[in-house]
């Protein structure tokens, strides 16, 4: 096994489920400082390593903690215990077109969105044509994005994000973006990523995607890690478990 791009070490994440939350001054005063809550562990002692250059799938049922883990990887949430360390630049693709301003043109939004995702102006300059060509909205690039169709909007957002060029890319189920032709282009882009030795971590419910793209996978259930290893054996165990559950 090659060196690890990302090490997830004993990560736990707790959420507070408030029964009665003090979110206004009135309730805070009426009840004193106490608010009633219950702890919910979305992740429990999860540890694994993502080998460098691999495409790593996270699978599990709804509510198993995949997205929480992904958000921890993307530094949006912070684990209550344990640590996540990664080598190189990490970029996340949890939503496309974050921070687009509807009144600004596509061109201005590419620069804005690029800098939110951590690209410098020079990076965007260099990649601008590639981004626009990939999105296929060149004709409308100087129009305000509020006039875009939802497909164009999403495609432009995705094109910026995919061109951030990180060492590790964290992706939530956004492969369902755009039409079939655009999806094929996205898959090709991920393949290119892999050939360049970059690491991709993705969450998806599509078995097809995992089979086509991933070489490693981890299976989460109820916040705990069930199995981690090469994609085929994890998927076999996971599908077997789902079939069993269905019966």
């Amino acid at each position, binding site marked *: 096994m090659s060196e690890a791009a990302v090490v997830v070490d004993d990560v736990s994440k707790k*959420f507070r489920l408030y029964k009665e939350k003090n*979110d*206004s*001054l*009135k309730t*805070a005063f009426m009840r004193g400082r106490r608010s009633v809550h219950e702890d919910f562990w979305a992740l429990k002692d999860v540890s694994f390593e993502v080998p460098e250059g691999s495409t790593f799938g996270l699978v599990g049922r709804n509510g198993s903690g995949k997205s929480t883990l992904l*958000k921890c990887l*993307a*530094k*949006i*949430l*912070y684990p209550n215990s344990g640590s996540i360390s990664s080598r190189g630049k990490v970029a*996340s693709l*949890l*939503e496309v077109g*974050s*921070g687009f*301003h509807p*009144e*600004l043109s596509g061109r*201005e939004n590419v*620069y*804005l969105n690029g*800098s*939110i*995702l*951590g690209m*410098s*102006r020079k990076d965007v300059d260099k990649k601008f044509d590639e981004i626009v060509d990939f999105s296929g909205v060149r004709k409308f690039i100087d129009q*305000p994005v509020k006039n875009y169709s939802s497909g164009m909007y999403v495609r432009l957002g995705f094109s910026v994000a995919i061109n951030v060029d990180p060492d590790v890319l964290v992706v939530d189920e956004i492969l369902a973006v755009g039409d079939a032709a655009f999806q094929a282009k996205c898959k090709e882009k991920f393949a290119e990523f892999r050939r360049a030795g970059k690491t991709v971590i993705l969450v998806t419910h599509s078995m097809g995607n995992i089979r086509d793209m991933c070489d490693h996978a981890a299976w989460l259930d109820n916040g705990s890690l069930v199995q981690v290893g090469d994609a085929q054996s994890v998927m076999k165990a996971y599908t077997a478990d789902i079939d069993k559950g269905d019966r």
Partner: protein
Amino acid sequence: MTYLSELFASRELFYNLTMRDVKGKYRRTVLGQLWSLINPLATMLVYTLVFSFIFRARPSVGDPSGLDIYPLWLMTGLLPWLFFTRVVTGGMSSVIGNAGLIKKVYFPRMHLPFSVAGSVGYTWAIEMGVLVVALTVFGGMPLIWVPVAVLFMVLLALFALGLAMLLAIGNVYFRDLQHFTSIALQMWMYLTPIIYPLHLVEDQAEVHGQWILDVYRLNPMERFVSVFRELLYDNRWPDLGDSLVCVAWTVAMFTIGFLVFKRSEKRLAELL
């Protein structure tokens, strides 16, 4: 230290977020950026009518500039105040307003209130530029005081930002805070000698007791307004005591706001 260096490394984001607000605000308006001048002009007209013609507020003549024009005197105090309130209210709601972004992308969150100060400051700089031209046309000599005034503009921006960051975090826990703040800011304005001169308060203090003035002058905005008046309207060095109080308030407020924001930043995605 790494926190500051990360903030500095992503300064382009600050610039882009600022320009997003600046460019986005007046898109699809015929007058565009001119609106940012029309607003304070309209306020100036109303206040001049009410407080100069009807209530007969008489500020003392500019010393040594010799200016005696209420609207200009008003604006040297009102423009800093308007900047202050816009940064506080805008910065305070910037975290909740960008909840979608905070939940989906990692970036130094402090750029959200910072960029509010940036875009509001951009407008303010234009307004102050026009004011300086007007003061010069009517016989003042504000030009040589501009560098010092810019320094105090930066101080006021940091002071406002400190308060805005503090309130932005408070607002995440208690949404009541933004409604409370808008009322507090209204009262605060009338407790600051912006539309009436300070000597009216001094007169009352002589009659009713010195403590009135002492309490009144605890207000940091009173000091800031005095400093801007002395620099631009009177054209002289600001009172040293006032200047030091401004610096002290700025350092204290910005430090508190910065530390509180930094401490809560990591948990924002969960709390929103």
